[in-house]
C-alpha cells in the first residue's frame, strides 16, 4: 500500500546542498510509486523560482528537473504564500510547473498550489512520512 510522503524544502538552492539532495531523494521515492508531495516553505520557495541562471557562480543548475517530476506522478507542489510575501516574491516569480493528468485525457494542469500557512500546516499533518531538507 502506498504511503503519503512529504518532502519539506526550507532552504534556498546552491548556497547549501539541501535542495539538490531533496530533489535526488524525491526521484528515488517516485520510482517506488509512493504518493509524493513537496512543500516549499521559508527560503525553500527560491528552489522553484523561474529564470535561475547559474553560469555566473560556476555551478550546475538543477531547476529544470522540477519540470520533469510530473512524468513521475509528482505533481503536488505546495508553496506557502506567507513565505513568498516575506521575501518580496509573488506567484509570478515561480516556474510554471505542470503535469499531464492521465485521468482527464492527459490535460495539462499546474503542479504548483499556493497555500496559506494554516493550509500548509493542515497538509503537513496529513502525511505518513515527512522528510526534511
Amino acid at each position: 500500500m502506498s504511503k503519503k510522503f512529504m518532502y519539506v524544502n526550507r532552504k534556498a538552492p546552491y548556497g547549501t546542498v539541501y535542495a539538490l539532495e531533496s530533489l535526488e531523494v524525491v526521484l528515488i521515492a517516485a520510482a517506488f510509486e509512493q504518493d509524493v508531495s513537496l512543500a516549499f516553505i521559508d527560503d525553500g520557495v527560491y528552489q522553484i523560482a523561474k529564470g535561475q541562471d547559474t553560469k555566473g557562480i560556476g555551478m550546475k543548475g538543477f531547476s529544470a528537473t522540477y519540470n520533469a517530476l510530473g512524468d513521475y506522478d509528482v505533481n503536488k507542489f505546495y508553496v506557502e504564500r506567507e513565505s513568498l510575501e516575506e521575501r518580496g516574491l509573488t506567484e509570478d516569480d515561480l516556474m510554471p510547473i505542470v503535469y499531464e493528468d492521465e485521468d482527464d485525457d492527459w490535460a495539462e494542469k499546474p503542479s504548483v498550489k499556493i497555500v496559506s500557512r494554516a493550509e500548509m500546516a493542515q497538509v503537513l499533518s496529513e502525511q505518513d512520512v515527512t522528510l526534511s531538507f
Partner: protein
Amino acid sequence: MSMLHIVNKSPFERNALASCLGHALEGDSVLLIEDAVVGAIDGSNFIEQIKVAMADKSVYVLGADLAARGMQENRVAEGIQVVDYAGFVDLAANNEKTQSWL
C-alpha cells in the same frame, strides 16, 4: 580604517546579517553573497534594517548569486549596489580589512 563585511547566510535563517549590521562602523561596506542575497530583494522583511544601515554604510550584493536564484538586478531594493566578481575584488582591495560573518 574601513572594513569590508561579507555575509553569506540567508537573514531568514541565521542572524549573521543582523549581527554584522550591528557591528559594522560608519564608512564600512557590507557585501551579501550566496544565500544572503535573498535579503536584498525589494519587499523582503530585511530591507528596513538594511536601509537604516545604508545611512552611513554601503551595501552591495553579488549579481551572480542573485541570477542563480532567479532574481534579476531590478529586483534589488533601491540603494543596494549590485557588483560582479571584479567588483568583489575591488571592494576587498579598497578596504583595509575584511571580515566574514559565517
